[in-house]
């Protein structure tokens, strides 16, 4: 696919702060705009944007801070999300639709449906999640062009 002039790989890094609900989603909106400007297929843009937003909200809600690294290459788009925080004790449980540890405050904001991680997996061609309790969680999300 055509990403424009002589672009081998584009890397963008976004820092996300915990409990910063006023700005939550800003990084993912920026990622979406970047992909649109590059001429990425709209279906692919939407998949990456949704996965990114869910990951970003997880940082804001559950971690202390996190970094989202977007890489755009001719074959695929990858998003690596690394946070510092409590980690996830039971990943299979966290991946179950409907399971949530959201606080009442988060639920009042419309989150905590327990669909975050499943939504990410659904929109990714490759999805890896690793976590260490007391340290943090890493997500690797890959969406292939034209898949």
């Amino acid at each position, binding site marked *: 696919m055509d990403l424009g002039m002589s672009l081998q790989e584009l890397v963008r890094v976004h820092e996300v702060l915990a409990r910063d609900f006023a700005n939550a989603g800003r990084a993912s909106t920026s990622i979406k705009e970047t992909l649109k400007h590059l001429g990425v297929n709209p279906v692919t843009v939407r998949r990456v944007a*949704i996965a990114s937003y869910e990951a970003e909200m997880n940082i804001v809600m559950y971690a202390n801070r996190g970094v989202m690294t977007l890489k755009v290459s001719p074959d695929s788009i990858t998003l690596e999300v690394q946070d510092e925080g409590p980690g996830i004790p039971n990943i299979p449980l966290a991946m179950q639709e409907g399971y949530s540890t959201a606080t009442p405050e988060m639920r009042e904001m*419309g989150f905590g449906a327990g669909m975050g991680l499943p939504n990410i997996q*659904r929109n990714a061609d490759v999805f890896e999640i690793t976590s260490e309790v007391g340290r943090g969680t890493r997500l690797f999300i890959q969406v292939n062009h034209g898949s």
Partner: protein
Amino acid sequence: MGMLPRTQRRALTLADVREILSAEVLVGSDLSGPVASIEAADLMSDVLALSKPGMLLLTGLLNPQVIRTAVIADLCGVVLVRGKKPAPDILGLARESNLALLSTSLSMFEAAGLLYCAMTGK
């Protein structure tokens, strides 16, 4: 307010939605855009899981994440029900994002019912 006459049955536009719901337009100068589908929801992750591009969201939720979710999911607009009016920062975010934002005094049930009838002709 109510169902469009059978002779006018066609794809709904945001302008039609405004008329059907007697809604106030908070943000949005061009309401000619089509409404591909409609969802009534207060859970943003449900919206992200179930939405399709061009969808209209009916919601009673009033926070910046509604706007962010709508933009991420490529929604055509958001209608706030029960007469809710957002704070200036949310209006600003909708304007900045070029997202149509309307408000109706109807309940979620009434608004969804009227739009369902208008959309399906039932």
